[in-house]
């Protein structure tokens, strides 16, 4: 995690040094790299025997638990989002 923080800090510093210039291609570069990352993560999951074999046996239970956890966090995050939107709407 320290490595990630340092890389992020280096990125912020580099961006700040070059702040006088605008880089229009950054959003495109971001999404292309995201595609590449997802492809690589897919390969890693597909190559992982524990993941592929485990999924055949325990996949339903795992899916159920992850969907339930996801739904629960979406519900509360949505509530907080609505609450903040209403508060900020009222101020303006």
């Amino acid at each position, binding site marked *: 995690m320290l490595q990630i923080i340092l890389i992020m800090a280096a990125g912020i510093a580099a*961006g700040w040094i070059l*702040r006088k210039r605008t880089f229009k291609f950054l959003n495109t570069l971001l999404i292309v*790299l995201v595609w590449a990352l997802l492809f690589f993560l897919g390969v890693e*999951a*597909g190559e992982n025997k524990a993941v592929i074999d485990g999924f055949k046996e325990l996949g339903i239970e795992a*899916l159920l638990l992850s969907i339930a956890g996801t739904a*629960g966090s979406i519900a509360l995050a949505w509530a907080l989002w609505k609450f903040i939107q209403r508060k900020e709407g009222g101020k303006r």
Partner: protein
Amino acid sequence: MRGSLVIVGFFVAGIIVGVLHLIPQFEWFSNVSYITLCALIFLVGFMIGNDVEIFQKFRSLNRLYMLLPLMTIVGTLAGCAITTTLLPHRSLSDCLAVGSGMGYYSLSSVLITQSRGAELGTIALLANIVREVITLLGAPIMVRWFGKLAPISVGGATTMDTTLPILTNACGKDFVIVSIFHGFIVDFSVPFLVTFFCEL
């Protein structure tokens, strides 16, 4: 919608390549995804530093966004607690231990394997990988349906590293700081929560 489909397409293509072992000498490959992630993190940092107004935008963000990690933890545990009724052979603490991994699959699966055995450990591994995948693949749709906080919350412990780039893309640069803060807090709470529910 098209954005999400393209993302799903790349991920599925990767799985097929992986399952069929199309890449020779796979060992070097895990570095490739890590280097890509590092490049992405650097890029997200660069976009923050390059935006002269961004620090002002961060300062004007509502303080209430700091409650998001709490929403994530409570929401996840509530969802997993309900699941217990559908899985009669799993105890409440089993379900809560798996759920409290919140996407941090490497750590949670190891901790759970040690105290509850390999089967529940494997479930934790899969469930938390699936959660990360749901975030990566569904972020744009979640923003559309449930607002910008939903995909960050679903991202759980991963929102300051693996899922940060896609969240930056889906929620916009202004929410990078919410995402990092959220990931940081949830990441630190995972080992405590998993250990706690394993010992119940």
